[in-house]
C-alpha cells in the first residue's frame, strides 16, 4: 500500500535533492505535491491541510537555521517523516490488560471490515503469548457469521462461546454478558467479542453496540477499519467515536495496494492509536502496527524494519549462527549453505511481499508484481540435483555433470550454467565484503534477506521517539473539537 504516495514523495524529494540550495519557493512547490499526493491517498481534506501547513512552516523555520552546505533536502525530508509518524500514532501502544482477568476486547466496525477474521488473529496472537482467550459470537446478524467464527476459532485452537445460532436468532447483548460469566468461571484470561457490522448512521444498531459495551465493560474497544476506505473514514470514525466509542484502531486488508490514507485521517481526527495491522487472509498475517514503519513506507523508504525482523525470524537459531561463524572464519560459502538460505527464504513468505518492503519499492512496482515465485523452486531443484561434492566444489562441474544435473532438475543445461555463474559471482562478492568492502546501494542490515548472503548480525529497530508537540494536527483537531 501507499505505493503511489511513496513514489510521489520520491519524486518531490528527488527534485528537492537535485538542487544544492533550497529556496522558500522550492518548499512551497513540494508542499503542493504532498498535498495532491495525500488527497489521492484518500487522506481527509482537513487532515491534508493541517499536515501540509505544518510541514511547510516547520521546513521554512528550519531553512533559516541550516548552514549552507548541510543537507537541506534531507533535513526537510526528516520533517515530513517525523510529522507523519507523529500523526500515525507516535508509537505503538499495547492493549491494556485488566487488573482482574479476564481482559475484555470488543471489536466494532462497518460491515465487511474484517472483524471475524481479525478476532481469530487476535486470539492466536495472545494465545501465543500465554493468554487463554475465548472468542464470543455476538454477530447474530450476518448469515453464518457464528459458523464462520467457530471455524476460525477451531483453526487456532481457541474455544468459541456461541450459545445462539445467529442468522437473526438470539440476543447479542445476552451472549456477550454470559460470555464474561463463562470466562470468569472457567478462568479464561481473555475474552474477545466479535460483533455484527454496523453503519455509523444506524442509530438502532449503534445503541445495540453500546448495550454490548455496557454489558461487558471492555478494557479495549477496537475499531476495525478496511484500509481501502475513502473519505467516509472521517464520518464513520466520528460516528463510532460518538456512539460506542473506541480506544484503538485496527487496519485490515493492508496487503492490498490501497494507499491507506484513512489511517492518517482516523489517527489525526480521533487521536486514537492504530494498534494492529491485518495483512492477509491467513491467521498469521497479522502484526502490531508500527507508525514509524508506515511513515517510512509512505515516504518511499521501504519497510526495512519489518523485512529485517522477518528475516531474523526465518533465519532463526542454528543456521543463522552457523552461517555467521562461517562467514567470519573466512570459510567458503557453499551451495549447501545457499540451499539452506533459499529454504529459509521460502519460510519468510512470498518473494513479492518481501520485495515490496524494500526501499524504493514504489518505483519498481511492476517488477515486483512480475517477480516469478517459481524461480526459487527452480533454483532449489537444480541445487538439489547436485551431489554433495558438487555443491561444495563447483569446479568439478564439467559438461556431463551439468547435463546430468539439468536432467535431474528438469531444467536446461543453460539454466544450470546461469546458476553456477551467478553463484560464483556472489561467492566472489562475499570474499570482497569480508575483506572490508560493503555492498553498493544497500542500507545497513539489509543483506539479511538477500539470497546468497549470510544474515547480518541482528539489529533491532529503535522505537520511535514519542515527543509531544503542540503543533501536532491530531491534537489540534482534538482541541478544535473536530471529533469530541
Amino acid at each position, binding site marked *: 500500500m501507499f505505493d503511489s504516495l511513496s513514489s510521489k514523495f520520491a519524486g518531490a524529494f528527488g527534485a528537492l535533492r537535485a538542487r544544492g540550495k533550497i529556496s522558500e519557493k522550492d518548499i512551497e512547490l513540494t508542499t503542493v505535491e504532498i498535498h*495532491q499526493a495525500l*488527497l*489521492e*491517498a*484518500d487522506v*481527509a*481534506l482537513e487532515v491534508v491541510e493541517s499536515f501540509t501547513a505544518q510541514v511547510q512552516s516547520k521546513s521554512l523555520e528550519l531553512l533559516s537555521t541550516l548552514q549552507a552546505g548541510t543537507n537541506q533536502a534531507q533535513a526537510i525530508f526528516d520533517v515530513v517523516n517525523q510529522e507523519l509518524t507523529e500523526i500515525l500514532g507516535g508509537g505503538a501502544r499495547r492493549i491494556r490488560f485488566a487488573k482482574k482477568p479476564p481482559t475484555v476486547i470488543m471489536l466494532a466496525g*462497518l*460491515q*465487511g*471490515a*474484517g472483524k471475524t477474521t481479525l478476532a481469530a488473529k487476535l486470539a492466536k496472537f495472545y494465545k501465543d503469548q500465554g493468554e487463554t482467550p475465548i472468542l464470543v459470537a455476538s454477530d447474530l*446478524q*450476518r*448469515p*453464518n*457469521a457464528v*459458523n*464462520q467464527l*467457530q*471455524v*476460525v476459532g477451531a*483453526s487456532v485452537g481457541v474455544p468459541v462461546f456461541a450459545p445462539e445460532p445467529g*442468522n437473526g436468532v438470539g440476543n447479542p447483548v445476552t451472549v456477550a454478558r454470559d460470555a464474561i460469566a463463562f470466562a470468569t468461571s472457567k478462568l479464561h484470561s481473555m475474552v474477545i467479542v466479535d460483533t455484527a457490522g454496523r*453503519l*455509523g*448512521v*444506524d442509530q438502532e444498531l449503534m445503541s445495540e453496540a453500546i448495550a454490548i459495551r455496557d454489558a461487558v465493560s471492555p478494557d479495549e474497544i477496537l475499531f476495525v477499519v*478496511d484500509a*481501502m*476506505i*475513502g*473519505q*467516509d*473514514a*472521517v*464520518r*464513520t470514525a466520528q*460516528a463510532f467515536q460518538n456512539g460506542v466509542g473506541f480506544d484503538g484502531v485496527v487496519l485490515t*486488508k493492508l*496487503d*492490498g*495496494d*490501497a*494507499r491507506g*490514507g*484513512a489511517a492518517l485521517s482516523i489517527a489525526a481526527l480521533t487521536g486514537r492509536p492504530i494498534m494492529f495491522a491485518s495483512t492477509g*487472509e491467513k491467521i498469521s498475517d497479522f502484526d502490531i502496527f508500527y507508525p514509524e514503519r508506515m511513515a517510512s513506507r509512505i515516504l518511499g523508504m521501504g519497510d526495512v524494519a519489518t523485512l529485517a525482523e522477518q528475516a531474523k525470524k526465518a533465519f532463526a537459531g542454528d543456521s543463522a549462527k552457523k552461517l555467521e561463524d562461517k562467514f567470519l572464519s573466512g570459510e567458503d560459502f557453499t551451495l549447501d549453505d545457499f540451499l539452506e538460505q533459499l529454504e529459509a527464504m521460502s519460510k519468510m513468505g512470498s518473494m513479492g511481499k518481501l520485495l515490496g518492503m524494500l526501499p524504493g519499492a514504489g518505483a519498481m512496482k511492476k517488477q515486483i*508484481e512480475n517477480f516469478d515465485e517459481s524461480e526459487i523452486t527452480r533454483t532449489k531443484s537444480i541445487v538439489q540435483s547436485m551431489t554433495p561434492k558438487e555443491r561444495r566444489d563447483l569446479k568439478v562441474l564439467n559438461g556431463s555433470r551439468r547435463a546430468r544435473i539439468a536432467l535431474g532438475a528438469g531444467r536446461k543445461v543453460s539454466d544450470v550454467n546461469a546458476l553456477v555463474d551467478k553463484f560464483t559471482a556472489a561467492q566472489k562478492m562475499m570474499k570482497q565484503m569480508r575483506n572490508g568492502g560493503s555492498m553498493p546501494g544497500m542500507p545497513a542490515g539489509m543483506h539479511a534477506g538477500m539470497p546468497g548472503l549470510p544474515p547480518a548480525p541482528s539489529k533491532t529497530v529503535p522505537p520511535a521517539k514519542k515527543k509531544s508537540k503542540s503543533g501536532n494536527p491530531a491534537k489540534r483537531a482534538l482541541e478544535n473539537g473536530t471529533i469530541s
Partner: protein
Amino acid sequence: MGLFNRLVAKVRGTSTASALDWSEIETELLSSDLGPSLVTELLAAAKKMRGDDAEGAIKEILRSKFSDKSRALSEGDGLQIIVIVGVNGTGKTTSVAKLATHLDSQGKSVLLAAADTFRAAAVDQLRTWGERIGIETISGKEGAEPASVAFDSAKRALEVGANFLLIDTAGRLHNKSALMDELGKLKRVVEKVAPISEVLLVIDATTGQNGLTQAKVFSEAVDITGLILTKLDGSARGGVALAIESTLDLPIKFIGTGEGATDFTPFDPEKYLAGLLA
C-alpha cells in the same frame, strides 16, 4: 441541508460564486470520493460555465461522465450466467441473494452457485440465503476447486433449463495475481459449458480511490460488464463509482442499500447524483 441548498442562496442572484463558495464546493465534492483529479476537472469546467447555477453546471458535467452503456442485464435466449466478483467484504454474497430475489420477482428461474470454497463458512452463508429466499444453491465438496463447482453448476443450470445462474466467488484483493488467475480460469472453465453473460464487480461505497485500481485490474482479468455499488445506505456517497464509470466505461447496474434481500434496486443516475451532492 444539502451542499447546494446551503450555497444556492449565495450563488443564485450573483453572476459567479465567490472563491469561498468554490472552496466549500471543492471540499464537499472531495468528501464524496470522486477523487482529486475529477474534482479539479469539474471545478475548472463549472467555473467556465455561464449563468448563476453552480449546481446545474456541476450536475451537467457529472452527467457527462456517465457511461453510455446499457444498465440493464444482458438478455438473450437460454441460460444467462452472471459471475459476481470483488475484493473481500464488499457484499458479493449478499448481492447474489439480492439479485436472485430481484430476478425471482420478475418471474425468472434462478440458481445460485457457491464458488467461494475458500473463506470459512462462505458456502453455508450462501446456502442460508438460498433457503431464506427459496432458491436452490449448488455447492461442491469441502475445499473443492472453485472452477469445478462453477462448471458443475453451469451444467446443472443447463439441464434444468434455468433462466439465470448466479455464481458467488471468494473475495480477493486485486494485487494477488494468483487469485486473479484463478478467476480467469473459473471463467474459461464455465464457458466450456455456456457463455457467461455478465461479470459484475461489487464495489463498496465506502471505498476510496483504490476502487479505481480494483476496477482496472478486475477488468483485465475477467472482462467486467458492470458494477454493483453496495452499502449506499451508510454515510458514504460512493463517488469512486462515477470515477470508474468515466475512466473505464463500466456502467453501475445495481445498488445495495441494506442487509435485507430487497434492499437492492437498479441504478438510477439522477438519484445517485443527488446523493453525491447531498
